[in-house]
Each structure stands twice: as structure tokens, then as C-alpha cells.
């Protein structure tokens, strides 16, 4: 029995080692050549014309949703139109995208073109000298640049006159979705002022309906969807921009404390369902669409998510508007928080023919055709385009039309340093658990002050 075991084990081990050597060598060679793409090719390829230009692009449109497929199709089209180029396109799952990008950034091995978010994400890359401007595209296609909404390039204009990316999405984060049927059932109108909102919340609570569905497990949700817009109504946009720069305003100012107190009021009124901090936003959206909650405050992504999982009739029932106004606030009432979405950036190490092709690729992905296609994939863009209404669902249409009529105010985490954003995200969760408004404001002020001082 022992002899038999020994022989079998030896054979098994030998087999495995052989398999390893064979495949690892094969895999290694195949992997090795692809690996060179980002690092050392661009300069050399200019000399040898027969050799293909190598280009690498990273993005996180890896899923099955319409927008992801749209973006990937444009990349494929570009690849087909340029046989002289070898394109290494990586679709990385969004969950791991940031981690992977951070790791290659730490090793200074960025891909030629990569998807980056507005705000601290792209700012860090700029400060580290890892990206170069794409202004050449704007010079070659001036009408394209004109058609972007106001402010589309602000977060990407790190130097006056030079843009570093063009947004292919619009971040719109604070829509008030509501279920008219539930409102009718209890004889209520959708609230336009804060007092109306309080009244509506109380009536719903008395009748066992959750007033506002919230899924704040990933803590950016409450900050991005509610606080940004709510606070702007109280403090005004100018105050916020000054506080971000720590130039004449601080987060411990009374305006901001007042804004946080309005949020606290929502918590105290039990506007959200219990345990909202352990439910993720997809689950909260489902909770809402199934008629368990009367309202939901969320971003444009909610429409994309719901389109994938709810029926047309359910979607058609939902109405959309802006959150109510605050009495005596310094900000404009009819606004949503939002701003330019993410876009593609160009690595500072790309040069020569590769750079030309990279710029063309970026234009393909953010040009008029792409913007229209993305808008038609149930995803807002910051570009003035018309869409074919039959291609999108009813709710998206309502949202698309609404966006053209409202003002846009900043989203907090697009302007705060990443550390300060974490602080306010966690702070809102603290407030939801009964924490003190003043202490959260102080922590936020300290974090942002530190970031500005660097």
C-alpha cells in the first residue's frame, strides 16, 4: 500500500511540475510581449515603419450594461479602423480599478490612455506629473469643444487654457425620485419646500411607509446625493468653493452647521429606513421601486440600475424632480448637485505616433458620436446632444429633459481632498447613528485644512 502511494504521488507531482513548466513558459512569453506595451515602445516604433504602434488603454467598462458595451464597441471600431496599431485594451472591474491604477501609478507604469475621475483622482495624477494635456484635440475640433455644457472642463483644466480630459458622462447625483401612487394614496403632493417635506415624512411614517429609501453602506451615497445639494441651498455655492480653498470660509462656519443640522433633522424624523447604513444603494433602489418607500434621492445611476432590473411599467410610474427648497437659504432652489463625469486622460510618457493615435482614440471615445451613443444608453452626458427617445426608457427621458432646465451645483467629493471626503462620508454615518454635528464639522475642517496646506 505504501509503495503504491509513493509511486502515484511521484507521478502526480512530476506531471504537475511538467504542466507548470510548459504552460508557464508559454504563458510567460505571451504575457511578456504584451507587458511591454505601456513602458518602452512609443519612441522606438517611429524608426521602424513595419512595426505596429503599440497603445494601451485602461478603463472600467467591464460589465454587461448598455453603456459598457457602447464604450467597448467604440474601442473596437477604432481598433478596426487602425490596422497599423496594436491596441491593448483592458476592461477592469470597477471594484478593483482604483487599486490597480494606484499600484501602477506608484511604480510609474501608467498605460497610455486611462479612464480617470474628476476631482482628487485626476488631480493627484496631474500633481505627480503622470498626465499630459489633450488640448490638441480641442484645437483640431473646435465645434466639439463648444458643445459641452458650461463647466464641463473645469475640473480638468489644471493649467489655464490646457485641458487634460473631456468628460464622457455627467455626474448628476441628487434627483428626488418619487412614487406618485403612494402620494395620491395619502392625499399628498410632492414637496417643494422644506416644511412640506417634513409634513410628508410624518404622514408616511404614521402609515408605515418608508418616506425616503436610502442605501448608505458605501458611505459616499448620503454625501453625494443628499448633503451636496442640501448644503448648497443653505450655504450657497460661493461659500463652498471658498471653504474648499480654505480662503475666507471654513467648515465650522454657522452656515455649514445649519446645513448639517437639516440633515440631522431628516435622521431624527426617521425619514430613512432602519439600518440604512448596512444596505447598499442597489438594494435601496429595489426597495423603492417595489413600492416600499415613497421617495428616493439618488443619482442618474439609479435609472441605469433600475432599467436593468425593473419592468417598464414600474419605471414608467416613477416621477423625478429636484429636492425641496430651504427657507432663507443663500443657494438657488431649483438645482441638482452634479458636474462633469469621468473622462480619458493621456499618460505623460506617450510620445510620437503613439501619442497621435492616443489623441485620436480619446476623440473617438468622447466625440459627438460617442456622446450621443452614451446618452442613448441610459447614461447622462455633459454634451449638448439630441437623443432618439425610442431608444431609452420613460424615466430616463424625464431625467434627460429635467437636466436641461436646472442649475448644477458642486458635488462635495469632487472638490474636497480624498481624505476630507472620507471624513465627511463617515461623518454623515456618525450623524445617522446619533453623533454630534459640531464634531463632524470640526473633523472636516481639520482634514481639508491639512490638505490645502500641503
Amino acid at each position, binding site marked *: 500500500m505504501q509503495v503504491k502511494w509513493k509511486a502515484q504521488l511521484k507521478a502526480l507531482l512530476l506531471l504537475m511540475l511538467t504542466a*507548470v513548466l510548459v504552460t508557464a513558459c508559454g504563458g510567460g512569453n505571451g504575457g*511578456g510581449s504584451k507587458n511591454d506595451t505601456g513602458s518602452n515602445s512609443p519612441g522606438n516604433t517611429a524608426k521602424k515603419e513595419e512595426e505596429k504602434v503599440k497603445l494601451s488603454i485602461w478603463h472600467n467598462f467591464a460589465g454587461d450594461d448598455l453603456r459598457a458595451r457602447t464604450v467597448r464597441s467604440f474601442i473596437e471600431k477604432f481598433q478596426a479602423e487602425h490596422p497599423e496599431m496594436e491596441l491593448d485594451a483592458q476592461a477592469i472591474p470597477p471594484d478593483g480599478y482604483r*487599486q490597480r491604477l494606484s*499600484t501602477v501609478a506608484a511604480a510609474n507604469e501608467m498605460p497610455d490612455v486611462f479612464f480617470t475621475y474628476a476631482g482628487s483622482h485626476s488631480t493627484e495624477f496631474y500633481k505627480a506629473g503622470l498626465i499630459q494635456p489633450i488640448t490638441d484635440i480641442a484645437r483640431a475640433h473646435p465645434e466639439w469643444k463648444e458643445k459641452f455644457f458650461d463647466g464641463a472642463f473645469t475640473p480638468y483644466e489644471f493649467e489655464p487654457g490646457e485641458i487634460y480630459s473631456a468628460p464622457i458622462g455627467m455626474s448628476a447625483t441628487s434627483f428626488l425620485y418619487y412614487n406618485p401612487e403612494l402620494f395620491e394614496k395619502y392625499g399628498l403632493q410632492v414637496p417643494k419646500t422644506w416644511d412640506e417635506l417634513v409634513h410628508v415624512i410624518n404622514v408616511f411614517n404614521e402609515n408605515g411607509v418608508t418616506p425616503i429609501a436610502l442605501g448608505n453602506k458605501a458611505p459616499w451615497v448620503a454625501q453625494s446625493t443628499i448633503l451636496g445639494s442640501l448644503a448648497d441651498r443653505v450655504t450657497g455655492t460661493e461659500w463652498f468653493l471658498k471653504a474648499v480653498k480654505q480662503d475666507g470660509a471654513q467648515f465650522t462656519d454657522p452656515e455649514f452647521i445649519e446645513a448639517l443640522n437639516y440633515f440631522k433633522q431628516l435622521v431624527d424624523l426617521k425619514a430613512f429606513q432602519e439600518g440604512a447604513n448596512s444596505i447598499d444603494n442597489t438594494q435601496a433602489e429595489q426597495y423603492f421601486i417595489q413600492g416600499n418607500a415613497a421617495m428616493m434621492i439618488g*443619482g442618474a*445611476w439609479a435609472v441605469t440600475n433600475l432599467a436593468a432590473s425593473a419592468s417598464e411599467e414600474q419605471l414608467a410610474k416613477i416621477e423625478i424632480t429636484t429636492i425641496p427648497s430651504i427657507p432663507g437659504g443663500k443657494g438657488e432652489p431649483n438645482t441638482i448637485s452634479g458636474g462633469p463625469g469621468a473622462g480619458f486622460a493621456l499618460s505623460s510618457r506617450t510620445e510620437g505616433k503613439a501619442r497621435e493615435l492616443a489623441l485620436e482614440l480619446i476623440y473617438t471615445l468622447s466625440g459627438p458620436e460617442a456622446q450621443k451613443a452614451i446618452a442613448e444608453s441610459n447614461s447622462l452626458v455633459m454634451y449638448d446632444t439630441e437623443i432618439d427617445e425610442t431608444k431609452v426608457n420613460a424615466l430616463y427621458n424625464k431625467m434627460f429633459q429635467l437636466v436641461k432646465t436646472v442649475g448644477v451645483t458642486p458635488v462635495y467629493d469632487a472638490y474636497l481632498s480624498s481624505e476630507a471626503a472620507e471624513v465627511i462620508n463617515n461623518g454623515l454615518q456618525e450623524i445617522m447613528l446619533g453623533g454630534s454635528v459640531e464634531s463632524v464639522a470640526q473633523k472636516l475642517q481639520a482634514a481639508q485644512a491639512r490638505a490645502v496646506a500641503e
Partner: protein
Amino acid sequence: MTQVQLRNKGFPAGLRLFAALLGRAALLGYAALTLYPLYWLFISALKTNEEFFQRPYSLPKQWMTDNLARAWDLGNMGRAMGNSAIVTLSATALTILLGILAAYVLSRFEFRGKKAVSALFVLGLLIPIHSTLVPLFILMKQVGMLDTYWALIFPYTAFELPIAIFLGVAFISAIPKEIEEAAIMDGCGWWGVFGKMMMPLCLPVVATISIIAVLRFWNEFSFALVFMNSQAMKTLPLSLTLFSDGFGTDYSLTMSAMAIAVLPTIVIYLILQEHIMKGMVAGSVKS
């Protein structure tokens, strides 16, 4: 055994039987509880997104086997599974080979620096792997090892060796030395002793280490995410996260992908479990 004890203490037969049945029922209950989540995973995989949210606990109204096919295609799971298999098997083989060898040396021999080596391996147990992501990435980049199977095989092995050695030493220390001493007196070299005697005796611990290692490597995410660039080299856990985009998750596809990913591990466990039992039966007769 328990029956004998109870009889010796004078319990009547009926009560003994009842106690035995109660014990068995309790164990079965525990087993059912632990199996429930797996059952839930499989029925969720076969539902539409809508049904997943509306009726999370009931059997699917429509058995959407389509989900499995879609998850398989979109996630390129065939290729991913192949990659995972290669990396997992190789790393496991390497871990066992290097680990048992080292464990044998550490438990039977004395030499200078032995304490230092032992302490070094213990240190390996304490390391949170995420802190080594960037240094390892830089290291591999310089050596040109990225995007190869070795990029995963070596770190996986390195981090599993401490456990393998720990278990190996504990196991080997319990084996009496007389057999080896006899073999040495017969003129067998160390390699002979190791190959002919130790390895077969170590089968239970080899199987144990294998199960733990295989599961660790099969489900490992962070290293695979960062060290493997090209689509063709991706391992299975990466395809599982494909269906959530940071703003929303397609649960039915995610559950399907997970259900598919789980099947091979269940099969491997059942196979290895047999070997552990056989090894143990052989082991207990050895004296």
C-alpha cells in the same frame, strides 16, 4: 463509545437511544444550517434580478439557466477557470514539496540558526498581504515576471509556506523516529528516507495542507488583480466582480458566476477528503 459509557453508568436502553438520536439530530441541524447559504446561492443564481429582490428566499419561479451561460460568456469563465487551475495546482504542489521538506528538516535536525529560521517563518504568518502589493509589483516589474503564471505561483507559495511548515512540523514531530533510524542503519540516504518513508506517512497532513492551500489560491483576488494584466491571464475571482460597476450590482449574474466558481472547489474537497480518510486509516495501523 458513548453508548458503552452510558451503559456502564447504568442508563436504561431507551434513554441511551434517545440521547444518541438527539445528538445526531443536533449535528444534522448544524449541517443543514451550514449548507443553507450554499443552497441560497444556487437558487439565487437561477433567478432574474427582479425576483432576486422580491422573493429572495423562495425557489425560482422560472429557472433561468440562461444566467449561467451569460455569466460564463461575459466573464470568459472558461479561460479564467483554466488559469486558476494552473496557478492553484502549481502553487499547491510547490508549497507541499518545499514545505514538507523544510518541515522535515526543522523537526528532525539541529543546526546553527535553526531558531532564526523558525522565527522567520512565523513572521510570515503575521504579514497582511495588502502591504506587500506595491513592493511585490515593483519587484516583479523589474524582473519581468508580470503577466506570467509565476507572478502568482511564487507569492502564493511564499505566503502559504509558514502554515504548511507549521502543520508539517506538528505532524512529523508526532511520528516516532525508530523507523527512520532503522532505515539509516540499513544504509538508506536521507533522500531515500524522505522519499520512501516520510512522504507516504505524511499523506494526511499533505492532504490537509492541500485543501487549505487550494481554497486559498482558488479564491485569491488582490494579487491576481494587480499582477495579471492581460485578459487571457485573468483568474476566476476577477470575473466575479465584473458585474458590479461601483454604482450598482447585477446580482443575478454575480450569483451565477459565484455558483459556477464554487463547483470545482466542492469537487476537489470531496476528492481530497477521501484521501485524508484513507491516509488516516493507514496511519493508525502503522504502529
